[in-house]
Every structure is written in C-alpha cells, then in structure tokens.
C-alpha cells in the first residue's frame, strides 16, 4: 500500500501565516481537484483544507514522481515559492498515510483533541473529490473506512465527552442541576466576553428570558437588544434574584456584588427553587460562602477551569484507546490493499473455480460408477482444460496493461464478482 501518499502541513508544523497562504476555499478546492486530475503521475486525489491544516491525499504508481508533482502543484496553484513552505510539509506513505487520515478524522490530530467538527470537514472534502471524480477505488475504500473508524472512536471512547471550554463547562453543570435548560431565566450581570459566550450557549439551549444588568444602563440596553432580553437597573438585581434560575456575573467591581445574606433572603420567596451562580469575574462578584446555602450553587472561574482541565485530561486518556482502534483498522485496511495485488487475486480466482470443478467432478463420478478409471481420468482432464480455457483471458487481462492503469478497480470488481473475499 505504499502508493498511498499524504502530503500536508498543520498547526503543529506551520505557522498561521504559512497556513493562510496555502488554505483553499471551496471554489479553489474544486479547481485544484480539476487540475490534479490532469496530472499524469497522480491517480487519485483528495484535498483537505481547514484553518488548521492543508493536506493532499493521493495515490500514485510512481510515488517519487507523484510526490514531486503534488508539491510543485501546491506551489504553482498558490503562487508561492516551494522553498517557503517545504520545510513545514510532512509526508506520509502507506501505513503512515492511512494512520494519519484516520487520526485526523477521529480528531486525534486536532488542536483541541476530540473536537467534533473535523469529521464533517473531512466528509465535505471527500464529497467534493467524488464530485470532481478524483477519487477511485482506493480512496473510496479508505475514506469509508475513515468515517467508520471515526464514528467508532466517537461512540466507543469518551474522546468527545465533556466540555473543554469554560462557558460550555458551565452549561454542562447547569444541565446537571436543572436537567433541561429550556425555559430557564437568565440574569447577566456585567458584560465580559466569556459571559457573553455562556449566554450564547444558553440561548442555544432555549433559555427563555434573559435579563441584563449593567452599571451603565445604556450598555445594558445594547446587550439586552443583542440577546432579545430586557435590561434592568443595577439596583433591581435583588428583585430579580427571586425569579431567575441562572446568574452569570462578570463585572469589574472590587467587592462582592451579591452577598450571602442577600441570597438567603430571596430563597424563601423562591420557594427554594435552585439557583445557579456562574461567577466569571476576577475579583469575584459573588460571595463564595453563598454556595453553602441549600439549593444554591456557586461556581467561580477557577472551579470551571478545574473542570475543563480534568476533562482535557480525560480526553487524552481516551485518545490512547482511540489509537488502539486505529491500529486495528490499519491492519484491516492493509489486508484489503494486499488483496488488490494481481497475484493473490488470480490465485484466489483459480482456487475458487478449481474448487467448484473438483466438487462437481466428484458428484458426477459418484453417480457413474460404471465408468472405467481411464474414462474418469478423461473427464477430469476435460474439466481442467475447461477451467484453464475459461480463466485464460481474464487472467491475461488482469496481468497485462489492458486495465490501462486502473488495475485496482478491475481487481476489486473481480473480487466482488466472484466473491473472493468470503
């Protein structure tokens, strides 16, 4: 399987200024694939470009030539001197290339291990390769295996479990407290960037009403407009504490904005419904002692950071399991690739037909015991001759250059037609 080649660069090998010079948008990818199709040394090709990586997955009979053409193609298409980025390129062949594409799709090679978008991006890249007809038997099979492996890793390991951002960790906690965040009321105090992110997550979870309290009322009104919520005055916070379920605070205030006694006071009018304080401010806005009240949960930035760190560690542990799944898949794919060689296919084909002939002779001769040994020999000879004659042309065709460079395809068809893989 040495004819599978992967050339590319990613966030680990290339700085962002190189990556952005080489990135392909959707239209460019299409044109690039068209051009790749025209290159003589390259049989199949797929181009994969995201903000963190640009990769070319190829098959080529003459690998040296294929690699050379691919590199010069990148330089030519993007109008950059090859020397400017050649040192950032990595090159994988055979097993290593297969492993690389598996790891990329399973999000093991991502900047944030386990992030889910990458699989969709690989799928899109493959789709445009099929549309441009630059993928053939090998890449089709390889990519289908890739999707299968990536899905298996996602379902069998915890690589995508748990939040790895502060705002998402807060949402996850909220779900453990409230179950469903639909219809929950949110109070946003102050306007930090992280708080806004958390609010956006909450909106995605269909939180219903959003109130914004800001020292400068004008800014509060602007924010409220952005989230289709309503602005309240800073002095009204206490009144709203008895209504809202989630409070996100990120003011620049020096002292506490919300004190324990204040929360204790509203719990009775809340009839002890739980309330969740997310304190993203430094210095903190909410008295940490508030957490000791029943049905009140206070998480500050450090608590959330601890959760995120823990989750990242978890993901790294799960990545080890994922590598094992990939090892398995590489072996399986290697077996399939081996079967695409001419000799084993012809051998398997002969074995299959000979097997059929042999069992049929046996059956026939059993019913014709009156035949003399010479007659029996003659029948056997005739059958062998028949098998050889029938197989002569297909064997010759598969061995010769009649397949016109698309031998893998014909071998694959042969194996399927005669069910040689069962």
């Amino acid at each position, binding site marked *: 399987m040495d004819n599978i080649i992967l050339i590319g660069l990613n966030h680990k090998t290339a700085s962002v200024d190189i990556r952005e010079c080489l990135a392909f948008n959707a239209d460019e990818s299409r044109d690039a694939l068209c051009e790749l199709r025209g290159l003589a040394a390259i049989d199949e090709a797929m181009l994969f470009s995201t903000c963190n990586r640009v990769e070319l997955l190829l098959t080529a009979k003459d690998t040296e030539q294929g690699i050379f053409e691919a590199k010069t193609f990148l330089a030519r298409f993007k109008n950059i001197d090859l020397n400017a980025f050649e040192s950032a390129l990595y090159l994988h062949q055979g097993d290593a290339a297969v492993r690389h594409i598996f790891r990329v799709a399973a999000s093991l090679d991502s900047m944030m291990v386990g992030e889910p978008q990458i699989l969709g991006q690989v799928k899109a890249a493959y789709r445009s390769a099929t549309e441009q007809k630059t993928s053939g038997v090998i890449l089709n099979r390889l990519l289908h295996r890739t999707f299968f492996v990536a899905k298996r890793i996602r379902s069998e390991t915890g690589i995508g*479990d*748990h939040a790895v951002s502060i705002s998402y960790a807060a949402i996850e*906690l909220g*779900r*453990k*407290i*409230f*179950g*469903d965040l639909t219809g929950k009321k949110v109070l946003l105090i102050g306007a930090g960037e992280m708080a806004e992110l958390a609010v956006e997550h909450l909106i995605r979870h269909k939180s219903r009403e959003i109130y914004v309290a800001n020292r400068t009322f004008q800014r509060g009104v602007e924010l409220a407009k952005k989230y289709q919520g309503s602005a309240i005055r800073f002095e009204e916070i206490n009144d709203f504490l008895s209504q809202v379920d989630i409070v996100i605070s990120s003011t620049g205030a020096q002292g506490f904005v919300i004190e324990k006694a204040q929360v204790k006071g509203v719990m*009775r009018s*809340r*009839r*002890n*419904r*739980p309330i969740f304080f997310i304190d993203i401010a430094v210095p903190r806005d909410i008295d940490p002692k508030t*957490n000791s009240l*029943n*049905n009140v*949960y206070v*998480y500050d930035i450090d*608590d959330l950071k*601890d*959760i995120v760190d*823990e989750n990242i560690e978890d993901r790294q542990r799960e990545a080890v399991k994922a590598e094992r799944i990939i090892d398995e898949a590489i072996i399986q794919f290697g077996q399939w690739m081996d079967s695409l060689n001419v000799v084993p296919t012809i051998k398997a084909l002969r074995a299959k037909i000979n097997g059929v002939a042999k069992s049929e002779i046996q059956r026939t001769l059993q019913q014709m015991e009156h035949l003399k040994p010479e007659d029996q020999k003659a029948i056997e000879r005739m059958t062998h001759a028949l098998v050889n004659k029938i197989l002569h042309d297909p064997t010759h065709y598969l061995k010769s250059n009649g397949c016109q460079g698309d031998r893998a395809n014909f071998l694959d068809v042969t194996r399927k037609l005669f069910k040689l893989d069962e």
Partner: protein
Amino acid sequence: MQILFVLAVLCYMLSSAGYFAYLIIQRDVLQQIGFIMLAVGMACQSVLLLWAFADTGHMPVNNLHETLALVAWALVGAYLALHARLRVKVLGVYVAPLAAFVMFVASQFPKDHLQPQNLLKGFWLVVHIITIFLGYAGFALACGVGTLYLIQEHGIKRKSRGFFFSRLPSLDLLDSTGYACVVIGFTMLTIGLVTGMVYGKNVWGRFWGWDPKEVWSAITWIFYAALLHERLTVGWRGRRAAIMAIVGFGVLLFTFLGVNFLLKGHHGQFTRW
C-alpha cells in the same frame, strides 16, 4: 411452584448484575437487560401470588416468607410503574439488588403456612394489603432516589465531580422523582389505612384500637404528611426533602418490622416463621 420463586430470585440477581454493569460502563443495552429481567421476575412472582390466592382464597401474607416476597413484588412493581413516567434508569441499581436481597432473605424462612387465619379474607383486606405494600414500595423508592440526590448534590456542591457525576441524572429530575414517589406512597398509604380501619370496624367493631401497629402507622402517615405539607407551602425541596425521605423510610421500616418484633400487637402473623 418453587421453581417460579427460584426463577424470580435469579431474574432479580441477573437484573442487579445488569444494572451494576450499566452503572460502570454506561451501555444502554445493559440497563435494558436489567429492566427486562426485573419485569420477568415480577411476572413470575405475580403468577405465584395469583396461584396462592386462588389456592387458599386469601392474600399470601401468613408468614415472614410470604410477606417478604410480597415486599419485593410491590417494590419491583412500583419501580416498573414509575419507569413509565420518570426515567431514572440508574435507580435500578438500588431496586434490583434490594428486591434480590429481600427475596433471598424470604427464601431463608420456612414457607409453610401457620394455621391460616380466616381473618385474612374479604375485599377490604385485599385492598388494604395491596395498597399498604405499594405505599411502602413508593417510600422505599423515595429513599433510594433521595440517596442518589444526596450523592449528586454533594458532588456538585463540593465541586469534585467523581465517579457519579456523569452517571447520575440531574438534581431536578431526582428531586421531582423523589417527590412523585412520596406522593404515590402517601396516597397508597392513606387508602391502605382507611381500608384497614374499615376492615377493623367489620371484624372488631371499631375503627381505631390504639394497637402499637396502628399508632406507628399513624406516626408514619403524619411524618410523610408533614413532609408533603412543607414542600407545598414553603418549598421543602432538594437536600432537605431527600434527607427527610430517607429518615421517613427508617420510621416506616420500624412500623413494618420493628413493631412486630419489639412491640407485638396485631398484624403479628405477617412476620412469624
């Protein structure tokens, strides 16, 4: 018939194994196996109960063996019913082993009847027994859910999310499930006590006799009534409600078994062996 009993115990044990495996490796199919095993075990027991009822014409609560078996039956039945509305799958980890344990204890006591009493006949009595047992099962579930709540709440409060954080459902679901269990338990207990009094009137000519069993039943009823009242008026929910559900179950256990062993009074034949 013995074979059905053994089968039920086996089912509950398999179910426990399924739920524990589910707790650890979180594959949904394990939980489904556990659930099906519970249902099969319960079906076996139901056949046994009907058989005994058809055979003798009264509820099979004549000795400790039969009484405990009925406890397990009611517990599993209540869980299966609860499951239809509020899915706290992980609660099976509490229900299945408890049912298996109760059945195992039951199997350790002789199963022959001790002079079946004609006192145990009649419509009011059948209703009394079934509702009381279902009520007890509801409170047992409330105790289990309360325990899960306390574990989950502890983890969230301490900000140390351990083994259970991802495995237990949200606090809100646990709290409302616990509440539902108490409501069901309380309703059943109330019906059970009323039918018991009606029955007492029929047999002994009085509604109330200050028997220890009656007194403690009333104490249990008042305890849960107070719990519900506080929840509805001032919103006793969450941690406090969970603790009260657990304490309440302690009181209930004393009413059920403690009174019989320590204080005597009527209802004694339930727990003889």
